[in-house]
């Protein structure tokens, strides 16, 4: 029996854009509103009806990831695959390492999701569009979110260039994609692309959400050592633009496998093209001369955020209490966990999130904050607009404002706009503002 689709979640990323947070915890396990980040894509897949998911993790994390299912009440079976992060693999490299695991199944489509995606899209709709329009690759796009919250830590000037995505207006066919940071002053559209004569919509305000649905043969082509993709490390930045441009020109050189050679089409495809008189638009209707692969976009105007930079991670955490039901529907997970103990004289505001097993003592004031699991908030603590990780203890009398605390604060101090990942850096009675308190590496 052929399975319809296989899901792969890429969770081996080192979190290059949030290094201060990922020194102790891998990016996929960072807490996002008391749940690890990885739960969100897994829940998304579960909602779409997947019962088995392959998760690609880096070394040493398979235990923790494997236990996630029981811990957080997920109903999918996880097939954990480990890749070595010795040589900084890109997303495609890590897929190649576990290629054998994927090939054992015979599926029609492969869904690849990044572990940091938080969205409320109905994955079933994406798959439906992919199948009904006969696409070989469907990419989820959404308007780039505008983030109003300011993250803690020193003010950084890192301005990431946005992705540029060009689609055929009306049909949503993807004709050109380039990742942010890979282009300079101008973007060149080739003449073969322009021959399709349909109006094209070029957008810099749309982001590629790193959710791809690929046909099986295309996925094999990407992982094949003979194809031109063999040298490309990153799925989003290199392989995707290459596949998109193959719609118009075939980049096959003598020793490499061309895309047209790898295409699998059903036997009756030509017959359908000839006799097709249906009114529902499909790939047989396009004005342009279609060469495989057919790449489409699914534009989702709702919430879609990738928590891979500090800014987006912070934004999601701060807004999680409003968004939770959108992105994590139909679950029994509650934001104010029943096992959390909140003593009566503590003031905890309505929009705060408190994780399980946490103890909030009396005379504390918690406003608009996220408190993780198994924390202990001692008396006389004032916590506002902050995010606490798991197993964090706050000593009495601390005042914490707009900060991200991932390690215990054992001494009384005032912390504003900081990121704390190492307890030892906190000294008694000091005021910290706009700093990152983390463990520095010893070169001894």
């Amino acid at each position, binding site marked *: 029996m052929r399975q319809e689709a296989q899901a792969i979640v890429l969770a081996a990323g080192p979190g290059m854009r949030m290094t201060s947070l990922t020194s102790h915890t891998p990016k996929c396990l960072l807490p996002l509103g008391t749940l690890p980040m990885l739960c969100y894509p897994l829940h998304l897949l579960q909602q779409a009806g997947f019962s088995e998911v392959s998760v690609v993790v880096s070394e040493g994390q398979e235990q923790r990831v494997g236990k996630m299912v029981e811990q957080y009440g997920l109903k999918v079976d996880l097939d954990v695959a480990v890749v070595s992060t010795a040589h900084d693999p890109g997303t495609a490299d890590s897929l190649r390492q576990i290629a054998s695991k994927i090939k054992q199944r015979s599926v029609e489509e492969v869904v690849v999701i990044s572990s940091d995606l938080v969205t409320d899209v109905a994955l079933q709709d994406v798959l439906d569009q992919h199948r009904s329009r006969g696409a070989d690759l469907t990419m989820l796009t959404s308007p780039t979110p505008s983030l109003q919250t300011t993250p803690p830590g020193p003010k950084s000037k890192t301005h990431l260039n*946005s992705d*540029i995505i*060009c689609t055929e*207006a009306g049909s949503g066919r993807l004709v050109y994609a380039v990742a942010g940071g890979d*282009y*300079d*002053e*101008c*973007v*060149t*559209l*080739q*003449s073969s692309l*322009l*021959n*399709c*004569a*349909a*109006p*094209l*919509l*070029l*957008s*810099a*305000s*749309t982001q590629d959400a790193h959710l791809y649905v690929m046909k099986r043969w295309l996925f094999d082509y990407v992982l094949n050592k003979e194809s031109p993709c063999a040298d490309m490390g990153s799925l989003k930045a290199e392989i995707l633009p290459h596949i998109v441009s193959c719609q118009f020109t075939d980049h096959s050189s003598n020793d490499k496998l061309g895309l047209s050679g790898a295409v699998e089409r059903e036997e009756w495809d030509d017959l359908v093209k000839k006799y097709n008189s249906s009114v529902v638009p499909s790939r047989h209707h396009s*004005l342009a001369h279609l060469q495989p692969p057919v790449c489409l976009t699914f534009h989702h105007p709702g919430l879609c955020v990738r928590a891979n930079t500090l800014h987006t991670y912070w934004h999601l955490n701060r807004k999680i209490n409003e968004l939770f039901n959108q992105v994590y529907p139909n679950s029994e997970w509650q934001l104010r966990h029943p096992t959390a103990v909140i003593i009566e004289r503590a003031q905890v505001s309505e929009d705060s999130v408190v994780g399980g097993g946490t103890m909030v003592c009396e005379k504390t004031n918690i406003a608009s904050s996220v408190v993780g699991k198994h924390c202990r908030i001692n008396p006389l603590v004032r916590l506002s607009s902050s995010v606490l990780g798991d197993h964090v203890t706050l000593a009495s009398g601390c005042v914490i404002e707009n900060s991200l605390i991932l390690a215990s604060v054992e001494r009384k101090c005032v912390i504003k706009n900081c990121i704390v990942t190492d307890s030892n850096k906190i000294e008694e009675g000091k005021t910290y503002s706009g700093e990152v308190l983390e463990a520095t590496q010893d070169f001894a």
Partner: protein
Amino acid sequence: MAPKAEIHEEQVLQAVILAQCEQDYGDPVTQDVPKVLAPLANTPLLEYSLEWLERCGVEEAIVYCRADTHLETIREHCRAFMTRRGDTTPATTHPGGLRVNVVASEDCHSLGDAMRDLYAKSLLKGDFILLQGDTVTTLDLPALVTEHRESRAADRNAIMTCVYMGEGGKVGTTAEKTTTATLLVSASTNKLLLHRRRGGRSTSSRLSVPTELLQGAGDILAYPAAYDPSVTICSEVVPSLFSDNFDYSTLDSLVRGVIEQEELLGYTIKCRVLEGGYAGRAASINSLIGVSGEVVGRQAYPLVPEVSQTSHRVRYHHDAFTHTYWDPSAKFPKGSMVTGVVVGAGTEVSPTAHLQNTTLGDHCTLGDGVVVRESVVMTGVCVKAASKLEQCWVGDNVVLGEGVVVAPGCVIGAGGHPGGSRRSRPRHQALCAAPPW
């Protein structure tokens, strides 16, 4: 549709039709008749524009032409246009109808010269519609002018609205390289960001989009091949820009100049790409034949061949099944061999002739076994038996001998007598003012 009354004065809707400024048909066609009066489906080209402008409620049309031998013909024609309304019920809503003013100048060689002259004579009083003389259009011009005025009211610097036809409107057969352009338009404000004529001097057709345009303007719509029907709505700033810059000779150069100097001058050009509606430009002989085919195919409804534009009377019978229009006095085989054809008065077509997508003028004679495809034939032409004409233009009083094969793209001037059994070279123009060969 009455124009919107402004605070101080009523704005008169004006149009400028440029006759004889760009791309002429060439001598065999225009030796007797100016280009704008060349018949398209047996109606002069200018008639289509004037009729449509009148229907749109335009009050004044300025026909600008060069002061040469044809000037009097054009003047006469326009006078006849204005006086014809005396004996027909006007179909327009405006009681005054269209006033046609013919302005001529000896030095006019380009659109730029025409604009400068009009500016010097202060004939243009506000926003005006700019048409080329060879455009056949049934676009909703008042709506375009209203949109232009609104965008002008919102942003004083939007000096011009260019109108292009997108995919749905017209693309394909008559879209030549010179009349298609690659456009970049901002999706939110309809501002024209880049304009490039296709198939011009630049051979590379790669499109480089500067990323700062994307960051600044938001989403951009790129039209790789938009058809240019030469319909533009201009404000009063446009003629003054032409007179400031003697380099600007065509509208393209103005567009390019304004876009490049946007920081300096601050002017912007809006662009509307229409998906519906019809506009065709009969710029060259080939496109004349193409547009003629489209008009015969009723794409330019309500400007249809069977209603004479001059007298508003039905002059032809019309068979919708084979798309044929014929004068009551014409004799021709009414069957499936004759499709998409306009047959003029007194024309005799033999029963064995094959006609397809052609226009025959008055008093023509076509012999047995003649095959005519996609051609335009003027009055008094005699085509003897077994001749073949394909995609050509045949002038008045030409006699084609037996078995003449005319290759595509040929133009045979008036009065010529190409003898029997000769084949002409493709795109060969035979100029005949003298007695027969």
